[in-house]
């Protein structure tokens, strides 16, 4: 007799499981759970803390906040940031002052740990929500963050 009761119990457990999936099949859901990327590209908004890539914001006069202190370069665990700097002569005081020549960021090596942005004393670099980083050439992932001809804002000291 246990043969038939086993069959009965077995089918019952299968039906219990199928009632869950069947329930979802019948109950119409409001939209899908998955995101319809890339169709929703225009409306897609990432969270404001999302770590996409490191950028250096510039204001309208092409000025940034980076003093060239190299805190980010030291904080980076795998050398994704390189800073090439030299000394510029301040026209007013005549003193020599450190300034960045190139702030080079290797996106292809970056692990998105966020230590550089934590280390920056002047908030010169921030996270940008861009995550579409597919390119055909690897060298395009090496970026120079400061724009050509840009300079540090007056009064920013580290």
């Amino acid at each position, binding site marked *: 007799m246990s043969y038939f009761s086993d069959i009965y*119990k*077995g089918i019952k*457990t*299968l039906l*219990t*499981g199928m*009632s*869950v*999936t069947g329930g979802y099949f019948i109950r119409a859901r409001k939209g899908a*759970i998955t995101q319809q990327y890339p169709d929703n590209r225009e409306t897609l908004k990432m*969270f404001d*803390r*999302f*770590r996409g890539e490191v950028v250096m914001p510039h204001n309208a006069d092409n000025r940034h906040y980076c003093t060239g202190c190299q805190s980010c370069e030291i*904080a980076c*665990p795998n050398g994704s940031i390189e800073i090439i700097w030299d000394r510029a002569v301040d026209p007013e005081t005549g003193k020599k002052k450190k300034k960045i020549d190139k702030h080079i960021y290797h996106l292809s090596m970056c*692990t*998105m*740990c*966020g*230590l550089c942005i*934590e*280390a920056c004393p002047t908030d010169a670099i921030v*996270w940008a929500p861009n995550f579409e980083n597919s390119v055909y050439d690897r060298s395009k992932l090496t970026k120079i963050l400061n724009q050509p001809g840009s300079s540090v804002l007056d009064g920013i000291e580290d």
Partner: protein
Amino acid sequence: MTDQQAQNKIKTEEYFINMGPQHPAAHGVLRLILTIDGEIIKNVEPDLGYIHRSIEKMCERDSYQQIVHLTDRMDYLSSHINNEAVCLTVEKGLEIEVSDRVKVIRTIIDELTRIASHCLWWGVMGMDLGALTTYFYAFRDREMINDIFEETCGARLTMNYNVPGGLMFDIHPNFVKRTKDFITHFKTKIPEYDRLLTGNVIFQKRTKGVGILTKEDAISFGVSGPTARGSGFSSDVRKHHPYSAYDRVNFKEILFTEGDTFARYQVRMMELWESVSIIEQLIDNIPEGETKAATKAVIKLPKGEFYQRVETARGELGVYINSTGNKNPYRVKFRSPGFSNLSVLNHISKDVLIGDLVATMASFDFVIPDIDR
């Protein structure tokens, strides 16, 4: 002549077969060299090294802040807990006491991580045994946790939210609301998980009495986590050596004595309820306080050895730091739960079928980068 005797007369030969390194049931690049007689497994020899990245050696190069992000890449399903283990060790060495707020937030995110990890394990375990639907249901709920992490920490998997001395930044204003929403949602979903898979007759036939691990073996092989608790070995670090805010919450240590695959399954399913209960106790009263204790820019641990263990989703993770007083550690060693749990696989998989080995491995919940580091 009986059938048995007739079978004995047939000359059989043992042969080797590779399970992995690219095997759908291995969840990563783990190569198992199986010695097989017919379909009966005679020996299981794990071959490691396919995803070795020398994380421990890289730690000797890095400063103490930089070590933290490497541990994300070990057991990527409990990355926040790994980060916390390193931070607790460094804080122990520096003798910093982090604020209550940091402790509570760390504990909440730990438990969210554990739920996310167990969700993924549940989906994958069903998938290994032929029930593909579980995977989609588990990922639906895991998605909500990933959104919470993304909003607060900025990343979904490799979060790197802990720093020695506290947290990188405060929680997002939406964190509490989102977590509460998730808890209400998830409490209706765990019974659904049970209805879908736990009671299923095929699932029960494939897991009950399969891959039995005795308590003595679990202790002598150094097995920890839910795998050990399925054999009745009380090994929960959260209970025995509380860290962060685990000493101020009430939770049960789930113990099952059968030691088979189904017992390990039940431990993890019950742990989901315990994690939910821990979060519920903490989420309403996150104390005020600073999120980061003041540390020097260059952390130098005093000369000596420091050890801290935590309970990840797979078992006990130990972090050992040997410092000579420099800004880099002299030696770092991670005692990872996956490696010790893997060592017992050969012992309990003798004279079983290949399909049972897949079920046993699924219940062990291996993450291969954690084994290999």
